[in-house]
């Protein structure tokens, strides 16, 4: 695609990003790269900064220092080393290049499933109603909800709402999809249907950065796993390496041990 203008091989390049909420440092010099087609999963104890990191990538949160680039383009701030925030219009345009799926779905309650997907297509992508409707129906079909196009969010189960949330994000054809603990608010029996959708997107080559507590899914679906602790990246590697019980990283070992104890 735009490989010519892309100095870094990484689609997403996070470098030395730090952020503090008052006296609390939530991100400490975090660096992380995601290549095109990769699925990178961020794991770690709650409060370790995973969600904040994800929200920095599409600038739902600002950060204090460091840089976040997508295809070589700085996300939230103007180029040339200044810490000047982009205009709201520029920010909106940048955000349209990333898709995000939220823990609490965050569907627009007054719009139908199709309407939720069409809003960005018509208002941001400038597509006609008919065209947008077609795209919405295509993606609703992909997530197994073709028959729910005209249902309102309140008429859908959590798992269905989340699948609409995914469809809403991918219909915009984002360069990278950000998934923020997308199964955490779901009843256990609904988790599978959502993860199946994510898996099929991964198979299509969708680039993804996700935060999850579903370790089995992280192991099977990820190209790499990033372990965060206390706002910093503590370990990065292929799933087998990171999730190995005999890792030498003590924090990771404790996290995994605790995790296993509470989940099995």
């Amino acid at each position, binding site marked *: 695609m735009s490989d010519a203008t892309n100095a870094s091989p990484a689609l997403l390049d996070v470098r030395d990003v730090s952020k503090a909420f008052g006296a609390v440092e939530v991100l400490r010099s975090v660096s992380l790269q995601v290549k095109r087609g990769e699925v990178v999963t961020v794991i770690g104890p709650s409060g370790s900064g995973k969600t904040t990191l994800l929200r920095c990538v599409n600038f*739902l949160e600002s950060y204090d220092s460091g840089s976040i680039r997508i295809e070589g383009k700085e996300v939230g701030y103007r180029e040339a080393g200044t810490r000047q925030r982009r205009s709201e219009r520029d920010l*909106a345009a940048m955000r349209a290049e*990333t898709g995000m799926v*939220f823990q609490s779905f*965050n569907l*627009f309650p007054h719009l139908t499933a199709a309407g939720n997907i069409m809003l960005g297509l018509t208002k*941001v992508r400038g597509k006609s109603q008919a065209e947008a409707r077609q795209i919405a129906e295509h993606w609703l079909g992909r997530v197994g909800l073709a028959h729910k196009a005209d249902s*309102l969010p309140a008429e859908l189960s959590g798992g269905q709402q989340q699948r609409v949330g995914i469809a809403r994000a991918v219909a915009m054809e984002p360069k990278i999809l950000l998934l923020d603990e997308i199964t955490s608010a779901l009843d256990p029996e609904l988790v599978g249907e959502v993860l199946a959708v994510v898996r099929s997107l991964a198979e299509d080559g969708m680039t993804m950065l996700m935060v999850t507590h579903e370790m089995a899914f992280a192991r099977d679906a990820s190209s790499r796993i990033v372990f965060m602790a206390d706002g910093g990246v503590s370990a990065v590697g292929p799933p087998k390496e990171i999730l190995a019980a005999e890792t030498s990283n003590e924090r990771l070992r404790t996290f995994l041990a605790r995790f296993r104890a509470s989940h099995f």
Partner: protein
Amino acid sequence: MGYALNFNLIWRHFDKLWGGLLLSLELAVISIAIGTVIGLVLAVWYVSAGRVVRAIIAAYVEFIRNVPLILLVYLVFYGVPTVVDLAYSAPTSFVLTLSVYSGAYLVEVFRSGLEAVPRGQLDAGKAIGLTPWQRLIHVRLPTMLRITLPALSNTFISLFKDTSIASVISVPELTFGAQWINFNTFRIVEVYLVTTAMYLLTGYILLFGLRLVERRFRAAR
């Protein structure tokens, strides 16, 4: 003792009441429409503004809410024209007053509604690349409306009743019509009974209509 009810004189002058009711409704509709615009604009401005603008809007709301409407009506009708060179009719003066008055109440209704829109929805709007203006129009306002409709209905009904205050500056609305009949027939009980019934009935009809709108919106939730 022994007051015998006699409605004949009331029916003979019923056109005063009927015409008054229509004028009351007209005053209410125009004032509420203007007040809604004031309320919406200020509420949207408030939630996105800095401290100074917020303080100014809050001062307007506080002022209006702590001064009796009747005083504001006198102030605008008798006070303002003596200070500045302005001439307006009593109905215009009242509409002006009730608009500014309802605006203050509606700012509060809309502001609390805007602030009650879940942050996640705004995040979702940002995430798909909507500009701030688009987020306001397509995400925030529709949700706000849904949240505020019940409070909005109550405020509208209350403002409709407030039109009776216009009688103090001789605007021939319903209450003024009732006073006129009272002065000319001395059938005080009858005329106020009929007038009360007319306010009640109109209020109920309005409320019924607004509840229908609410139900439509709630169904679409």
